[in-house]
Structures are given as structure tokens and as C-alpha cells.
């Protein structure tokens, strides 16, 4: 460097050191996350858990393992809404589920489930389509703390109105209140919706394929990844899906380099169908 680094450049060094410490101390690699949004999150964590200096947060990361779950939650997928983007859930209900009905058993992988809002939305869709009894949903996330909250299925009651509207806009035939109870300012999802859901840790940056799925949902997760990690994730989805299986991405995400493996069912809603040879067929 031909000049003394200014505070932005120093912060860049601090961020690199934080990522390095996280990788070497705890084995989580955030080196392939999109830098601008990663920096925002790490800054927020440095504010929440200290004086705002990323280097101070790195010190705590190295020496206080008990802090790890909170840091991972702050670095993983943010909370969503039930039936967020209702048109997507309507298309799943009307176009995808009728086709999924042809399989005797359904395996569904929701990657990056955060606090589980979309997992429960999906369970409700399956229930109303009469498919839930033969379904198994794997809901995975990097953060154990997020998975714990997803498993609880308890949300602030102030979300209820918007979520009810979303449910109806997504073609819901009952009322969202049929699936939850409200008390003490909280909304609690019916535990029966969890009966075929397995919540499990999975890191798209490090872990492998673990199931053979008819449907993979991964919405608004890939936007946080730099290109190589996006491609790694899409390859995992491709190799998890059976021939003719479905992939559902966020409304502003695209399969990019993996486009050859996915034919759009509804390109605007980012719903695709797996084409080409499956992982099993490609093995020599």
C-alpha cells in the first residue's frame, strides 16, 4: 500500500481477519459470501456484542465459544414471512403440487429455513392438498439457534394480519387461524404441522447432498453468496433432485450457470424443473 490505510481499508482488513478466525476457530467459511451484505451483518454484530469494532468481535469469537450460536444466527438467513410472495405459493399450490402428487412419497428440502415461516407455509399447502401424510420435509439452516426457533414455531402476533392476507392471496381455502393460536402477544403454529418436518443443521458452503428430493426450496439465500458458492449450492440442489423434480428460488434470484439443468415452469416466479441426467445416472 503506497499510503496509510483509511478507516474503510482498515475495516476491510478487520473483516478478512474475522472471516479467517471464524473459519479456523469454528470451521464455518464465510469467505464466499457477498462482501457488501456480509460487512453490514458483521458491523451489526460488532455493535450488538461490543463497541462496534470488528477486531473486538473477532477477539470474542476466538475466546468465547459460547458466543458462536448468536454470531451464526446473525450471519445466516434473516427471518421471512409466512407465504411471503403469495403468488409463488399460489403457483406451488396450483401448478407444482398436482404434479408432485404422482410420486408415492415426497421428499422436500427447504435450504436456509431461518425461523421456519416458509416451512410451516409449505406444510399447510401440503396438508390442504392432501399430500402431507406422504411427505417428509427437511428444513435446514446453518444456525442451530435459528433451527431452534423454527422448531418452536412461535412468532410475534403483529405479523398475523399480514400473514393471513398472504395465506388467502396464496389461494388458502380456510383461515390461517385454523393453524395457529394467539396468546400473550404471540402466534403459535399448531405442532401437528411439524409432524413430518425434520429440522437439521446443514451448511451450503461445506456440506454435501443428503437426500433425494422432489422439491427444493431455497428462497433469498443465494443472494447472500458470491458466485462460486451460488454455483456450489445450485449443484447441490441439482444433485438432490430427482428427474422432473422442482426447484423454487427467490423472486430476484436466477440459476445462472446451472440454467442447463433447470427448465423454467414459471420464470417470473423462479420455479424450475430438473432436466438432464440425474446425479445417479451421471456416475460412471
Amino acid at each position, binding site marked *: 500500500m503506497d499510503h496509510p490505510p483509511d478507516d*474503510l481499508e482498515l475495516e476491510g482488513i478487520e473483516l478478512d481477519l474475522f472471516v479467517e478466525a471464524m473459519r479456523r476457530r469454528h470451521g464455518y467459511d464465510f469467505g464466499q459470501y457477498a462482501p*457488501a451484505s456480509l460487512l453490514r451483518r458483521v458491523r451489526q454484530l460488532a455493535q450488538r456484542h461490543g463497541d462496534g469494532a470488528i477486531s473486538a468481535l473477532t477477539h470474542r469469537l476466538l475466546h468465547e465459544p459460547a458466543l458462536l450460536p448468536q454470531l451464526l444466527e446473525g450471519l445466516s438467513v434473516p427471518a421471512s414471512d409466512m407465504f411471503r410472495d403469495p403468488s409463488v405459493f399460489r403457483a406451488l399450490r396450483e401448478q407444482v403440487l398436482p404434479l408432485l402428487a404422482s410420486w408415492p412419497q415426497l421428499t422436500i428440502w427447504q435450504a436456509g429455513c431461518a425461523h421456519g415461516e416458509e416451512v410451516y407455509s409449505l406444510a399447510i399447502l401440503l396438508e390442504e392438498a392432501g399430500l402431507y401424510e406422504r411427505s417428509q420435509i427437511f428444513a435446514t439452516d446453518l444456525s442451530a439457534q435459528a433451527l431452534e426457533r423454527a422448531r418452536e414455531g412461535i412468532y410475534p402476533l403483529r405479523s398475523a394480519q399480514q400473514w393471513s392476507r398472504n395465506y388467502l392471496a396464496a389461494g388458502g381455502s380456510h383461515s390461517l387461524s385454523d393453524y395457529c393460536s394467539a396468546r400473550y402477544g404471540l402466534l403459535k403454529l399448531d405442532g401437528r404441522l411439524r409432524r413430518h418436518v425434520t429440522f437439521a443443521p446443514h451448511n451450503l458452503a461445506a456440506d454435501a447432498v443428503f437426500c433425494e428430493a422432489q422439491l427444493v426450496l431455497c428462497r433469498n439465500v443465494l443472494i447472500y453468496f458470491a458466485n462460486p458458492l451460488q454455483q456450489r449450492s445450485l449443484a447441490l440442489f441439482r444433485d438432490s433432485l430427482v428427474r422432473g423434480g422442482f426447484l423454487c428460488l427467490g423472486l430476484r434470484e436466477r440459476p445462472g450457470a446451472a440454467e442447463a439443468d433447470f427448465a423454467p415452469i414459471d420464470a417470473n416466479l423462479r420455479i424450475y424443473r430438473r432436466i438432464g441426467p440425474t446425479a445417479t445416472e451421471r456416475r460412471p
Partner: protein
Amino acid sequence: MTCPAAIVLGCSAGGPEALKVVLGGLDPRLPQAVLVCCHTGSETVELLCELLARASRLPVIEAAEREAVRGGTVQVAPAGYHLLVERDLHFTLSTDPRVNLVRPSIDVLFASAAAAWRNALVGVVLSGANADGADGLRELRRLGGCAIVQSPDDALASAMPQAALARAGADHCVPLDAIAPLLNQLCLP
């Protein structure tokens, strides 16, 4: 002063009308990227892009995830996502929680653009009914960028320009009609 490489515009209530005037007055030869964050409350910015395209002599598109920032083009933040500029001048989207109760937030766009372009950036705060954009404009000025704020008494909603002036100050505080000529003057080589 350094010739700017990009212009960022932020607005909310009364924003589309103000944007039409500004974009309509921009010189079509401008080589700069023009980034827009406008709170609309609708599910997409498709209509906003169409409306602005009719007024603007520069092409207007929605900013897409992972795409390179384009010079000579107006790029609008999508509804429901924060828009950020990476240091390598590509776009990143985020569904992180709302900032100042909104997503996309002007503060988020301005702060990331300021880090990417530093003193080669012009930030403009137009009509709006909340204080989003004020912190972002402050960060933009701190990193050497040039700040323009629409005169509050000239804005349909004055809260946003007022908050920007109070929090960040401005290099230029001018009526709406004067903004495009000023940008042309600052940005044409």
C-alpha cells in the same frame, strides 16, 4: 474535483414525480451509472421503471442481483430488497430487516455506494416523508462524495430533504428544476 463515476438518488413520497423531472433533464451523453432507490410500497417496480423510462432519455432498468453496474443507465432498486453496490461494482441484494421501516433503504444503498466510489459519487435526496437517506448521505459526504438535497420548501414532502440537511448537510441545496442542470454540469467531462 474528481469527475463522478456514479449518481445515487433517494426519495419516497412525491419521489416518482421528482424523479421524472430529474431524469428528464439529464443529458443523454452522461457516462455515469444512475442508481435510484424509491420507496413505492408496491410489490414490484415494473410500473415505476416504465413511468421513469417515459420521462428519461437514459435507459431505465431494474437493478439485478450480481449484474455489473452499467454506465449511462438508470438502475432502480427492486421492491422488497435492499440494493447494495459491491466494491467490484456489481449489485448485491439483501432481504435483511427493514431499515427506517423500509426496504429498499436509501441509507443502505448510499452507504455501500459511498464505500465503492468514495469521492467519485454524487448523492441526491429528493422529496420524501421520512428520514431515510440522511445517514447514508452523511456517510457519502464523509467519504468525499458530493451531496445534493432538494430544497425542502420545493419538495412535495419535505421531511426527507429536511432530515438530510440536518444530519448530513449538503454541498448544494437547490429547487427540483435546478438539480438536473447541476448534475449535467458536475458529471459531463
